[in-house]
């Protein structure tokens, strides 16, 4: 058994702490906002300059000037503020955002991440991913354990062009959770999906962990 996308997001949401400012990437990370644990209040930041995101709008509330960084319509909530893109990335680079959850194509055992380009394929650009991994205090990667071809995504070294070096703190896959307490340390296996064994994970992981 492996975790579903929503269960992976819920596992990431379990890392939230009350009062955190959080930036979510597109894809599975977006689902984190539906899984905030009871009794915890967090503020979501969107790098296009919105701090304090509400839920998706009702049809009558749609406002083209209120979008998130995925270019989706969104709503305000009490306490929302808007800033310029320079101020938004000042928050990010300046270490004011507590947590970033984002997807990846590869993560290395040293916490490097690759998630913006595949040589030979069309390059769409890195957007804000490099800024987020460089500046946010704690970085969680949520990704499938294997590629579509069955290759491990948590690897000794990233083969793809890097987004950041030594920046990942927690890796959540559909099979397991790996974490390290500080950058420079090795990752340890922290949690397993139901019915998945350490040996199963070992067999499907190239990265070293303990």
């Amino acid at each position, binding site marked *: 058994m492996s975790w579903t996308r929503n269960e992976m997001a819920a596992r990431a949401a379990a890392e939230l702490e009350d009062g955190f400012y959080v930036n979510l990437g597109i894809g599975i990370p977006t689902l984190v906002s539906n899984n905030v644990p009871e009794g915890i209040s967090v503020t979501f930041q*969107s*790098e*296009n*300059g*919105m701090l304090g995101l509400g*839920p*998706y*709008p*009702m*049809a009558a509330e*749609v*406002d*083209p*000037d*209120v*979008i998130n*960084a*995925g*270019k*989706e*319509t*969104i709503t*305000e909530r009490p306490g929302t503020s*808007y*800033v*310029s*893109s*320079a101020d*938004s*990335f*000042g928050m*990010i*680079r300046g270490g004011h955002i507590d947590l970033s959850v984002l997807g990846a194509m590869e993560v290395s055992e040293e916490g*490097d991440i690759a998630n913006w380009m595949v040589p030979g394929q*069309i*390059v*769409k*650009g*890195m*957007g*804000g*991913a*490099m*800024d987020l991994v*460089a*500046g946010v205090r704690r970085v969680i990667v949520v990704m499938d354990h294997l590629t579509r071809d069955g290759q491990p995504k948590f690897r000794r070294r990233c083969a793809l*062009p*890097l*987004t*950041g*070096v030594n920046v990942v703190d927690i890796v959540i896959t559909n099979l397991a959770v790996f974490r390290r307490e500080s950058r420079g340390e090795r990752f340890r296996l922290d949690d397993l999906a139901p019915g998945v064994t350490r040996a199963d994970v070992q067999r499907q992981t190239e990265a070293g962990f303990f």
Partner: protein
Amino acid sequence: MTDRLFADAKSALAGLLRDGMTIAAGGFGLCGIPETLITAIHESGVRNLTLISNNAGVDDFGLGLLLRARQVRLMIASYVGENKEFERQYLAGELEVEFNPQGTLAERIRAGGAGIGGFYIRTGVGTQVAVGKEERMFGDDRYILETGLTADLAIVKAYQADMYGNLIFRKAARNFNPLVATCSRVTVAEVEEVVSDALPPDAIHTPGIYVQRLIHASMNEKRIEKRIVRQVA
């Protein structure tokens, strides 16, 4: 103080456009883009442009209009995912692209507008972005040198303006607009509303010193890229 206000985009851009120039445009995706001015630049037929903009519009809207008409030589952007024609020209080698991390792009524009030649930043250290750039340690961290960006012309979209050229942006349509407004000797702003009184001084996002020409926007389509709604309150 009324000489900033022009009748339309064409007259506001008169004398400002030439082949090979660099134009910086505000907006994030299709949010807060100067639609009226982009359309007028498209219609002018000016070519061989360098564009500085976070995104490249979509095939038939925003800066995508200039791409489709092959008016662009170099695009300086952070993400161009939603544009098929962009991909085609890029793969065919007809268009050059310089990708910047989004925050680096924002800061380069801000720096250019503030007379800052360069700055050190952690973003991109150890990646392709750092190749060929000076690296320096501050404390225990590695930083790379990025340079300020300026343009020959800046175009922005705002919500309100007064006759003094002061601007107020609306919600997330602010994004790159206040930065872009500073990075050129000539900034043309299109606004949804020109108010007759002066805007409240404390509410102004971009002071009129940065805005040389102003028009009432004739296009306010504000196309939505991803309209997501929920069913239940």
